[in-house]
């Protein structure tokens, strides 16, 4: 028999037991439906997340950090003053690094990244505080593509301006109307820093003569508040990292320590001057006894009067936290990362992130696939049942076919094709229903999508072609396997007995 003869035979036989055929196909339909929906949710979710990162340009980005194993150019940098020792290891990331990374082929632009020291952030006039989580970058660099809910992005001349995250808007009740946040003030709060303040706002109070521990403690407790005008609200619902952004030029000022200190040079000079004066006085002294009076004595140099304002630029001293480089094409990200790695820096690319994400999604889809597979297994038992019944009902027919010249193989194929065809129909029907369901779900999401918050759902209900083919192949295969036993049973019937069967 030819292939289409088997299909024709199957169709003719289905029409004999329409209800039973329908019920069997429905079982497979439900099985494939559950499998498809679960898989498509996972595939869609994954695609949505990847797309969200893509629209941010995250896949083209390479983050350059210090590599703790690389030799440090400047061991003096290792100071006890910094509480994070890991930051002190490895090669410093400074403007030279920035320029070197920018020169690497395929790198479009670079920006230094610094996590601003501010401890908390709040909306002016509100008591509730949030952890600041503020990042500084170079707004004029063509690296980030922050999508905004309201307002504008930062520009290079913005000093006391900030772009806040959606969490900020949410905390202060501006989720529905983020544009109203624009123009309001955010307050970044610092610890007192022990008498040192950022290079923004008033100078620190000069320590009084004989300043004691209590005075310095009081300075520490005072704290510093920096006002920043909100110019934009960033749309970070996908990453949900709640980050706020400021211009790195402003961050440089905020992270420059301004403090009072005795001027060492001036004091030295003062001491020398004092010694010289003493010498002169000694020589001028009338008697030896008079001269001895000028040995020692208080120079008066180490006093409040010799104190001076000092500024210490942390970026110059310690370098930037990291650099983010934008690469012209995703394909070149890995090569660029390697080039930077050779320079002695740590490198993170979105590839690591995608790999991680893929691992998680593979795990979830396996789990859901097993659940969907169980329902298909139940459906497979339905096929076996149907086909075993069919062989019993058609024993005489099998005998006649054998008499007419059908081989055992032909009989086996008739039943296997029939079972496979049941599986195929179930798979196709399951697909059609799930596509219809997905369209309905899409409409619902469109209508009520805002209430679903951060979930990226736009890809749910998109069926990649491989899933469509895989599901149909799988249900057909399940049918084929289910038909195996009844088919072999039918093909082994003795034709003479089969024809006589009552």
């Amino acid at each position, binding site marked *: 028999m030819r292939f289409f003869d088997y299909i024709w035979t199957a169709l003719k036989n289905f029409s004999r037991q329409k209800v039973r055929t329908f019920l069997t196909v429905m079982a497979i339909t439900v099985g494939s439906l559950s499998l498809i929906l679960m898989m498509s949710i996972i595939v869609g979710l994954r695609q949505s997340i990847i797309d969200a990162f893509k629209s941010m340009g995250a896949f083209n980005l390479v983050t350059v950090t210090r590599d703790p194993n690389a030799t440090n150019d400047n061991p003096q940098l290792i100071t006890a003053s910094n509480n994070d020792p890991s930051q002190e290891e490895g090669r410093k990331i400074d403007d030279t690094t920035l320029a070197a990374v920018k020169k690497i082929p395929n790198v479009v632009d670079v920006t230094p990244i610094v996590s601003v020291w501010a401890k908390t952030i709040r909306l002016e006039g509100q008591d509730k505080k949030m952890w600041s989580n503020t990042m500084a970058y170079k707004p004029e660099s063509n690296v980030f593509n922050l999508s905004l809910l309201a307002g504008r992005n930062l520009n290079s001349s913005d000093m006391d301006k900030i772009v806040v995250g959606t969490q900020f808007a949410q905390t202060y009740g501006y989720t529905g109307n983020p544009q109203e946040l624009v123009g309001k003030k955010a307050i970044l709060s610092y610890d007192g820093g022990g008498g040192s303040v950022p290079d923004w706002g008033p100078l620190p109070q000069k320590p009084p003569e004989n300043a004691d521990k209590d005075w310095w403690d009081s300075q520490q407790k005072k704290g510093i508040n920096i006002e920043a005008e909100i110019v934009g609200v960033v749309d970070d619902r996908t990453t949900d990292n709640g980050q706020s952004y400021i211009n790195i030029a402003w961050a440089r000022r905020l992270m420059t320590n301004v403090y009072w200190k005795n001027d060492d040079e001036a004091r030295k000079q003062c001491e020398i001057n004092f010694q010289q004066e003493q010498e002169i006085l000694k020589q001028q002294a009338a008697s030896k006894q008079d001269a001895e009076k000028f040995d020692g004595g208080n120079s008066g140099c180490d006093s409040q009067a010799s104190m001076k304002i000092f500024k210490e630029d942390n970026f110059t001293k310690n370098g930037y936290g990291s650099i983010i480089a934008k690469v012209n094409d995703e394909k070149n990200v890995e090569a660029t990362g390697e080039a930077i790695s050779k320079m002695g820096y740590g490198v993170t690319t979105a590839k690591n992130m995608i790999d991680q994400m893929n691992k998680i999604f593979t795990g979830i889809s396996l789990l859901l696939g097993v659940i969907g597979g169980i329902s298909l297994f139940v459906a497979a038992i339905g096929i076996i049942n149907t086909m075993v019944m069919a062989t019993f009902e058609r024993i005489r027919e099998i005998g*006649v076919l054998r008499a007419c010249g059908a081989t055992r*193989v032909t009989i086996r194929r008739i039943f296997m094709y029939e079972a496979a065809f049941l599986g195929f129909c179930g798979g196709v029907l399951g697909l059609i229903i799930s596509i219809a369901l997905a369209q309905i779900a899409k409409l619902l999401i469109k209508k009520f999508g805002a209430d679903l918050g951060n979930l990226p759902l736009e890809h749910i209900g998109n069926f990649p072609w491989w899933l469509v083919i895989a599901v149909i192949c799988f249900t057909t295969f399940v049918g084929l396997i289910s038909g195996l036993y009844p088919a072999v049973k039918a093909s082994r019937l003795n034709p003479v007995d089969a024809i006589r069967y009552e």
Partner: protein
Amino acid sequence: MIELKGVTKIYELGGEKIYALDNVNLDVEQGDFIAIVGPSGSGKSTLANIIGGLDIPDAGQVLVDGKNITEISDEDLSAFRNRKVGFIFQTFNLHPTYTALENVMIPLMLARVSLKDRRKRATLCLRVVGLKDRMNHLPNQLSGGQRQRVCVARALANNPQIIIADEPTGNLDSKKGGEIVELLKSLNKQSGITLIVITHDQSVAKQAGKIISLRDGQIT
């Protein structure tokens, strides 16, 4: 054409061996009209099925054109039945959801004949049995005599050398039965098809050129 040598077929029934056929020797020549008669359980059907390659003897040889078909593969034996033999059964055994035409096309479909030729050949066979105007009817829309004619057409489909009819008139009244026998006889006479008819009906047996009478698995 077909030669049976020492053919023996044994059934076991409750631990007891029953000889359906016991050392049967038979020569069937092209164009023969043979009637096999005998009481129930005498081995008539077994003999016919062995001649037609549907059953295989436990001992002995079945030589078709000098070739022993008891030793060939299922595929070759099936091809033999398909091309050389046409079976007609007492209970018709038509496929209930196939039309008359589709039923006649079954042996042609198994022979992998093209769809166009199938239709042509099946239509011709139905015309031979006088059912051309009924070819798109389902079996349950046909009378008993008409159904048996469809069976004859089905047996004729691949232009066989031999037709084996197991009680072809058993389910028909004498008038319709007579018509079927006439039809088979004319095929035997005009086309030279070898005809083997199993029958209880003496009037049918009388018309045969050769009568084989079986009793307890032996030709008497």
